[in-house]
């Protein structure tokens, strides 16, 4: 480079520096970490970019975590002091992280927020994040169980609409069984899911756990009634003793009429539309669950994911803005369009027409009657135990009474530490 050229470059550099000094420095962007799980982690990307456009001072680093690894990753991140600012959390995990004192209480944030309005959420869903009267998460999308059924098969059995009570429901299954015979079943209750026995117990009035969630309530009469109903469906040959992985292609079998009803969740609306052959597309519907004692007993559990703020976050204000943004009804509708996940805010349902949608309507009705699962860190363990003892009873290895007694003893043992910790805290 010639001396003249380098002198020219130097002058240019000097000018650049001077010009730079003359202007006020652009505000340094604040970066927040956001962990989202599974499919939602991918789908939320455009919403996050929109948030950044509307909040120029905030950058969001979105990390997608597979659902199966999320639980371990969150706990190890907590131990390694590497938690994010905001995260998506399965509703049943909130209790566990509050035991670790990892989550920020959100009551005051909500009280002063102009956009997050607790009255706009399904009450049962909102309650899942209330732990010892503190609010630790804002519901993001919701999940529960309803019945998916073949309208044509049920009509042929003499039931133009899905029954609302257990006795009518059993009657429908009986006539379906008579019509179908052979390798066809009235209902599919995957034996690898704890949801069904737990829901039947809830419907029969069981609190699942009792004495401030210190002991299991499985051997009590309410849960036993639901459990015996559940096991009876297998004993009477209404449900095949198969898990979801044992049945091959579930949608194919549903289309073939191998089973006429199926208790499952909202993601299957999209799956049914995509997977069922055209000739069956007009032949299926959804309905809220029947109950044992009138409409108030037609409950299901409150599932889904919430957004939480970590206590160790140094960007709490910016992070809360992200939660507020993702909770806006218009963003909730957009997220539903991207994922098929059902919105947590009721105004998002009415605004998008979901509340009157042919398939989503059953969820709308069901979500008015959802109850939280026990809010204890041991819940996942307890749910697995319920599954094990249910399987033993379904396969006829242990009668329901004995199975529930053993289940209670095992659950009580798992909760021993919880009882001791609760006893320590004044």
């Amino acid at each position, binding site marked *: 480079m010639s001396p003249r050229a380098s002198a020219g470059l130097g002058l240019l550099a000097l000018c650049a520096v001077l010009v730079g000094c003359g202007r006020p420095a652009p505000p340094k962007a604040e970066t927040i970490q956001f962990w989202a799980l599974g499919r939602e982690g991918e789908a939320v990307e455009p919403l996050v970019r929109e948030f950044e456009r509307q909040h120029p001072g905030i950058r969001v680093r979105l990390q997608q975590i597979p659902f199966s690894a999320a639980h371990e990753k969150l706990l190890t991140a907590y*131990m390694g002091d590497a938690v994010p600012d905001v995260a998506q959390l399965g509703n049943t995990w909130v209790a566990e992280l509050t035991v*670790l004192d990892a989550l920020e209480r959100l009551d005051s944030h909500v009280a002063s927020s102009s956009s997050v309005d607790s009255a706009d959420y399904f009450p049962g869903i909102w309650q899942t994040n209330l732990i010892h009267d503190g609010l630790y998460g804002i519901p993001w999308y919701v999940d529960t169980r309803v019945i998916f059924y073949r309208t044509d098969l049920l009509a042929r059995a003499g039931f133009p609409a899905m029954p609302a009570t257990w006795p009518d429901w059993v009657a429908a299954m009986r006539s379906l069984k008579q019509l179908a015979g052979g390798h066809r079943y009235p209902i599919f209750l995957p034996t690898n899911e704890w949801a069904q026995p737990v829901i039947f117990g809830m419907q029969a009035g069981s609190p699942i756990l009792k004495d401030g969630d210190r002991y299991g309530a499985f051997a009590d009469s309410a849960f036993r009634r639901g459990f015996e109903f559940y096991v009876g469906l297998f004993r009477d040959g209404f449900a095949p003793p198969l898990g979801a992985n*044992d049945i*091959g292609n579930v949608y194919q079998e549903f289309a073939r009429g191998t089973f006429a009803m199926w208790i499952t969740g909202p993601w299957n609306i999209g799956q049914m539309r995509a997977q069922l052959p055209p000739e069956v597309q007009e032949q299926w519907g959804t309905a809220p669950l029947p109950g044992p004692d009138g409409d108030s007993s037609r409950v299901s559990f409150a599932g889904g994911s919430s957004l939480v703020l970590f206590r160790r976050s140094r960007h709490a204000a910016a992070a809360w803005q992200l939660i507020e943004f993702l909770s806006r009804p218009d963003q909730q509708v957009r997220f539903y369009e991207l994922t098929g996940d059902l919105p947590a805010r009721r105004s998002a349902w009415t605004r998008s027409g979901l509340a009157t949608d042919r398939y989503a309507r059953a969820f709308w009705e069901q979500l008015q009657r959802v109850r939280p699962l026990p809010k204890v860190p041991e819940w*996942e363990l307890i749910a697995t135990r319920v599954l094990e003892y249910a399987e033993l009873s379904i396969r006829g290895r242990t009668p329901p009474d004995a199975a529930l007694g053993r289940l209670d003893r095992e659950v009580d043992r798992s909760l021993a530490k919880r009882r001791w*910790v609760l006893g320590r805290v004044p």
Partner: protein
Amino acid sequence: MKGAGRAAWVLLAPALLLIGFFFLLPVAAAAILSFTDFDIYAVGDPANTRWIGLANYATLLGQPVFWRALANTCYFALVGGPLSVLVALGAALMVNARVVRYKSLFRTIYFAPFVTTLVAVALVWRYLYHPQYGLLNYVLGAIGLGPIDWLGDPRWAMPAIIGLAVWKNFGYSMLILIAGLQSIPQELYEAAELDGAGGWTRFRYVTLPLLRPALVFVGVITTIGYLQLFAEPYVMTQGGPLRSTTSLVLLMYEEAFRWWRIGYGSAIAFVLFVIVLVATLLQLRLQRGESA
């Protein structure tokens, strides 16, 4: 002498430090943890840890699921282990036989499963075992045998897992046995042949005794490996159906890292440690006893 001793310590120090830090220290920590009730509550607040002595071990021994896991693990090791060694021995003899052509090709084919990724092949084997559409039931059906719900039937799930494990692991043992076979002097076979020994007699009185060190080594390695059964059931059955494929390591993993009962999980780890130790000593004693 003193100087040489010091030099030896200096030279050994790096290795000893590493072993101490990454092996002995965690083992000691796990031993201590196994006498506490360290769990999710203790992670949140260390004051929630209690010293509970042998209570974890007592609880463990009172749990039917522990005995189930122990029985499953022994079933897997005692059936799968010898089966692996037998298959490996058969394959080694075949590949080493003088009449066989393309030896290196067969050696590679038999060894290939050992270097595959377990999770990937386990998924493929899940398809093979599929009750309705699986290849295995298709073949059984063709010869008139009823379909078997391989991974869904508590009686068949463990044999199915053993099938996968034997297929996956025998290649390694086979290589060691081939090396053992090739180190047997050819003259011994010739001498035996001159004395009128047939194929079986030569195998029984020449091959087997001289192969014993290799067989014992393969047996010990396989047993230790099989007592630590984890990934196969973790991927294929998650320990089900009806806990028929839950192994001790899978139980330990569930307790420690799924339910975060780390103290309890550590106790399981130590029970497994003792079992592996006993099994190994037993096998080594067996070898010494026979060669004496």
